[in-house]
């Protein structure tokens, strides 16, 4: 299975967090608001393309009724089973390394 970078992991997680509206703009807002980093549009689209190539993400074009989009469709993002597996595996690695470090890693 292909490797998952840190930003790629965040993107996959954010897609999962969107529930009904897993669209690029919402993912970007989520990352900017909660991952404490500036996400340029180009970087996000690049990552989406890469995740799709790796088989972790799929998308379809949906008609959109959001008036601001002027009739343009939306890209509905779905994390694939491979994507979910990659997330789990990344978490296991992290858990292993965080294990026993609670006192150091949790704030005072």
């Amino acid at each position: 299975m292909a490797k998952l970078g840190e930003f790629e992991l965040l993107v996959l997680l954010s897609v999962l967090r969107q529930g009904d509206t897993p669209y690029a703009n919402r993912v970007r807002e989520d990352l900017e608001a909660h991952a404490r980093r500036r996400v340029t549009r180009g970087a996000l689209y690049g990552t989406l393309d890469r995740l799709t190539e790796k088989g972790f993400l799929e998308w379809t074009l949906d008609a959109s009724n959001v008036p601001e989009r002027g009739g343009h469709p939306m890209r509905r993002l779905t994390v694939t089973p491979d994507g979910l597996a990659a997330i789990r595996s990344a978490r296991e690695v992290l858990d292993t390394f965080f294990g026993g470090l609670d006192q150091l890693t949790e704030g005072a």
Partner: protein
Amino acid sequence: MTPRPPARATQILERSLRDDPAGPAIVGDVLEDFVRRARDHGEASARRWYWQEVLRLVGRRWLRGHVAGADPRPSRWRAFATDAVHASRTIRRSPGPALFTATVIGLGVGGATAVFSVMKPFVWAPLPFEDPHELVWIQNEVEDGEGSLSALTVRSANLYDLRARGRSFEALSGFNAFFDHAAYTLTGRGEPVRMAGADVAHDFLDVLGVRPMYGRSFRPEDSQGDIGAAPVLLTHGLWTRLFGGDPAVVGSTLALDGASREIIGVLPASFDFSSVFSPGISVDLLLPFPVIADGDPGFQGNTLYLVGRLSPGVTVEAAQSETDAILNALGEETPGRWGLDAALVPLAEYIGGPFRPTLFALVGAAGLLLAIVCINLSNLALARAPRRAREVAVRKALGAPRSRLIRELLLESVGVGIVGALIGTAVAWALIGLAPRAADMNVPLLDTITIDGGALAFAIVLAVLTSSIASTLPALRVVDGSEAGTLRSGSRGQSSGRRERKTREALIVAEVSFAFALLVVCGLLGRSFAHVLDVDLGFESSDAIAWQLAPSIPFETAQAAADHFDALTDRVREVSGVEAVGLVDALPLGRNRAWPFSVIGQPEQAEERRQAFPHIVDAGYLRAMHIEIAEGRDFARSDAEATDRVVILNESGARQVFGTQSPIGEKMKFFGPWEWEVVGVARDVRHVGPETSAGIQAYFPIAQMRGFHTLDLVVRTSLDHTVAAARVGEALQVVDPSMPVRETWTLESTVDRSLSTRRFTLSVLLAFGVAALLLAGLGVYGVLAYSVAERETEMRIRMALGATAAAVATSLFGRTAFLASVGIALGAGAAASLRGVLEPLLFGVRALDPVTFGGIALLLMALALLAAAGPAGRAAKSGSALGATE
């Protein structure tokens, strides 16, 4: 209403996403954010954001080869752009050195850009006339190079005949070279105002291709009949100043010297007569000047400057030989007719020519400064090279090609160069600001000097070039170093070896030699300036104020004029604080003219070649100017129209005309039937300029010379200028209430103006010189400091083997002195080779002046040793610290 994004941006975005299946959704994403932003921050800000967002997105996709239709393989341009992005990131990561480099570039480029802008109107910008390359300037030939104006001007009859017989010129016209000897008084518009009017032949403007902005040009009939009532053209300056730019003024009248004159037109702003033809002398009006045949009534002597437009295909040489032939024929037809000379030069050459030597000196100095900047930056980059070498070695080991690494390093320097260009433009702006205003300087076209788009482009090209040249050598060093060695050697490069040190020492030598040459130029011009200041002008310029007086009363006789002027000076003499008062038709360092003369009892050989500079003065002038009488007597009021004609010569004149004999009692002839008896000899006055010898000068009493009704009043007083101006002005108006008295100036300001070109050149050169000194000092310091840091181990070992701290320091000083000496010797050679360029600018000092050369050599040597002191101290200290620890 839903805000709409810029359509062009959307188009660009859609086109770049043409082949992307997610394209429509991406366009929708950007659009959605645009609408929200417009709602929160306003539409204008959202539109700006939209453009940025689109360009960033499209740019990124292009770099990655994602743009529709793009070749997916990395193209040369794409690779180039990626490198540019990488280079800009490198600069942003450590902006300090980049900013320092840009500032140093800015200094050098700023100097060069200022010089570029100053040169432009003289060297390549076309004159502000139609087809200026067809225009030629025609004046009498001058033999001594110090000719006063009458030797240069052309007789108006020559213009008349050349027009009639010549075929080389499409048109030929001229203007009265002595227009500034007379002033006009404008009345009827509040307080009387003095006006300067230039007299031009009716077709003068047509020859130049200048058309009035409003109204019409002169016609032949305007210069016929009563010239005193002829119509006038307003300059753009006067029109805005006096009439608030009202076009309806055309057709109305002006009261000049009591006569009503019709305003027939307004000149365009692009045609500034004074800026081109009479720099330093303001012109308010143009008046028509009659051009009539020799001997006709109203004939005006040797008074014109001619400007001609060559017929298509005719060269200046061809026109010159035709003109010579016509003048020869005229001489044969009318034996005894004199003044039949004409020298033709392209108009642009005539206007710009005299300033070429100054400009070449400035160009040379700017070039030297730029060379110093290049060397300095090369050195700096070399010193930083080991740090860069490590990063580069890593990338090389990972397979980055050599060409790409070099390109990236050069791109970095291009970025720094562009910042340097911006700093340089600001520096140029400041330097141009040093230039005095046009009215204070006898330099033509001064008002047209600006930092424009061309100058900015020049600055950018030069700065990028400088930056690239400076970084080429270090870039090659960095890229060609052995990666294995660099990677092993830790974060700072180890002793970089003999070859490297030799390179840096060679750069020091070059830097010192360029700095030496530049400073010698500064030194020589500085000494010349000091010599010019030391020149005895022959009169006392401090505590003296001047007015140009144009009485409102017409005079029947010379005696009547003299009586009126006596009444004026008597009144002024009574003003408290006034020590002396005098009158003259032309104060020194101002207007200019010459009259031919002969001596009774001396053969009349070469009469035309003997010309004297005339001054029409009252009995108080020489005393008021502190011009001493060396022999004989001064004028008195008893030298009247009815008494014998008397003249005072200057010392040079007396010597040139009468040799060692006393001239007192000798008789001379100027024009007219009178014989003038020499009654006195006055000390020489440098009339044309401090650098021009006095020549033959003759003083005549006002009462014995008709037709001089505009005179300069000089008042010697220790009063403050404004106080004196008010008191004297009041006194003058008691005698002549409608005479303008507002405009006054100090003799010191006149002297300053005569020095202004020299002072400006010197101040620019001094700025260059100081920059060169600083850079040379920094350069020497930088190289030595680096070399000490680098050789620390070697020094420790030497001290451990018994060398003392003093010996280590001495060896460093010795090396520095050696390098500086070599640099000075090379620089002396370079400075000596500039002799040809410099000689025309020097005064009282030779181009190989040993004092200047020696002084600059000492200065640079002292600077080099001073720069070495810090590193030498550190070297000694590091050695002794080692002694303590081991």
